């Protein structure tokens, strides 16, 4: 009797130690993760401050839980795109309080997420900045992607002096915040370049054109004979998935009032749908689903679609 009770006690002790060991491992993991997170927060904002300006606020850090406190209704755009942290800081000229700006530095986790939020908010009439991979400016603000970071530098007024200081902040970000310089977005080169509108490429992580299945979708706009045509493609995990998405998107358009049309070019393998007075085209090649969205002219749309299809077909998968 004593031996069996002892055996049971020993077993309970072993189980208890195992549970405690697991809890200790979890606690250690949390500690390590928090310590790692802390390292990422060490961005030296003193190196970002423009020369004749000074900090007009503390650096504030927001996470996915409290991002809405800063940007309210726009928070879902970021939190649904891999957002990790937002750092904000205001800078102002001590000589002229009207010369003020605010930096929003979003850590989006990787360059694809950063490009997504950058591209989806790109202002149509903006001026592209050639010294950066992805950057543009407007009359009072500058927007850029720097590795995993998406930055907005918002001027509180319009002036030459402030514009120079805003540009200086963008250069300071590029020169002082370390990133993985090997991180690229190869898909951006997949679009045919002829007639491509500069800066028109967008990247939808989810639900392009209101269709849930079109995730990880790149779009680009083309200008042909005063028509603007949007081409798109999404690289799927495999050929079968591409077939499914293409079919589901086709059915989605038909179910919402689209009418199947015959392609003018008999050799074109994609499907053409007239939707709300515009031409939609869907094709697939390998593991790519691609097509045209809301084109005024079917013939022009087919021409762009064929070029995109041919280019995607050549890409090693």
């Amino acid at each position, binding site marked *: *009797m004593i*031996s*069996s*009770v002892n055996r*049971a006690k020993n077993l309970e002790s072993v189980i208890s130690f195992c549970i405690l060991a697991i809890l200790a491992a979890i606690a250690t993991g949390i500690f390590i993760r928090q310590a790692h997170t802390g390292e990422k927060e060490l961005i030296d904002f003193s190196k970002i401050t423009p020369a004749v300006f000074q900090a007009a606020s503390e650096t504030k850090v927001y996470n996915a839980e409290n991002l*809405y*406190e*800063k*940007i*309210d*209704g*726009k*928070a*879902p*755009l970021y939190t649904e795109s891999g957002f990790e942290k937002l750092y904000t800081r205001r800078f102002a000229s001590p000589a002229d309080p009207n010369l*003020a700006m605010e930096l929003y530095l979003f850590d989006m986790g990787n360059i694809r997420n950063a490009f997504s939020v950058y591209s989806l*908010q790109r*202002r*149509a*009439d*903006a001026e592209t900045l050639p010294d950066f991979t992805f950057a543009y400016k*407007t*009359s*009072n*603000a500058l*927007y850029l992607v720097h590795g995993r970071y998406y930055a*907005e530098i*918002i001027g*509180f*007024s*319009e002036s030459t002096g402030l514009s120079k200081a805003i540009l200086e902040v963008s250069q300071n970000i590029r020169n002082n915040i370390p990133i993985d310089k090997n991180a690229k977005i190869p898909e951006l080169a997949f679009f045919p370049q002829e007639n491509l509108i500069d800066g028109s490429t967008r990247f939808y992580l989810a639900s392009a054109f209101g269709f849930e299945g079109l995730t990880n979708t790149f779009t680009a706009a083309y200008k042909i004979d005063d028509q603007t045509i949007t081409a798109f493609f999404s690289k799927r995990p495999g050929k079968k998935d591409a077939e499914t998405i293409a079919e589901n998107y086709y059915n989605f358009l038909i179910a919402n009032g689209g009418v199947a049309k015959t392609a003018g070019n008999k050799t074109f393998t994609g499907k053409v749908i007239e939707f709300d007075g515009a031409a939609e085209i869907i094709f697939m090649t390998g593991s790519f689903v691609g097509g045209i969205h809301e084109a005024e002219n079917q013939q022009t749309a087919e021409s762009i679609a064929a070029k995109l299809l041919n280019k995607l077909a050549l890409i090693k998968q």
Partner: protein
Amino acid sequence: MTEQNDKNLERREFLIRTGKAGIAIAAAGAASYLLYDKKNPAQNAEPENIVTLPDFSVPHVQEQSLSIVKGSDRTKTVAKAIELLGGIERFVKPGDTVAIKPNVAFASPPMLGATTNPDLVAEVIKLCYKAGAKKVIVTDNPINEPAGCFAISGIGKAVANVGGEIVLPKSNYFKNTTLAGGTLIKDWPILYEPFSKANKLIGIAPVKNHHRSGASMAMKNWYGLLGGRRNIFHQDINTIIAELAIMVKPTLVILDGTEVMMTNGPTGGSLSDLKRTNTLIAGCDMVAADSYACGLLDIKVSDLPCLAKAAAAGAGTTDYQSLKPMLAEVS
């Protein structure tokens, strides 16, 4: 023999332990059952803990529910818009305490159009005092740095310059409310205290694009009354906007479409997000006002499901033409 006893004892020990575990589970279950609150917290709460915003509306006057004034000078357009509705005296009586709810959601300068224009707020305050108001308070609940939002938006200074009083939100200003028939506003904290001391309420909002809801206008402006972790309502944004439009019965709403944020709302950031449309709308029917303003944003009424929801609940009409809006232009 000894081995047999050991087995018997193990079995006995097993049964004892099983019995103890069963008793513990039964006790926990019984305790949970006894402590379970079968009633909705709102229904169960003491009446004095649940508040209802007063009805601030004024009697309806046929064909004086909506006015639309074209012009670039907000001080002139708002004065004209109110004049067309019967004058400020229809809305503000001598001795009134008027609460004004602008959109001060962000610490953003006026030129970016993310917040209500300070000159417009100041002009409305002046009109209220001209009508004999005893006091005009201006309040909002920007979650982040309320004092900074009022300062950088220029509203704080503009209000002070014309004798208004800024009321910054404090934790004890929030009381829980429940909207009868509502699905989201149930025992939820709202900024209540400043409004409990007022007998007139004027909402003043800019016309903006909004990433989540499509637009932020007169109805969405009341979102600023919500306390707590109100971001959870972003998951059902149309319902919460409609419920706010049902919950709040203002004296007057003023919708500023002088310069409209067409893209990247509600924060904007670039002047290129804005478009000058030189329109100011005033009215007693905020559903109608927002429906008209859809045109300024180049969207259809049907693009904003909150409008149909609010109209179906009786908060107003999306058919603004049926109200025969008063039209004018000022230079």
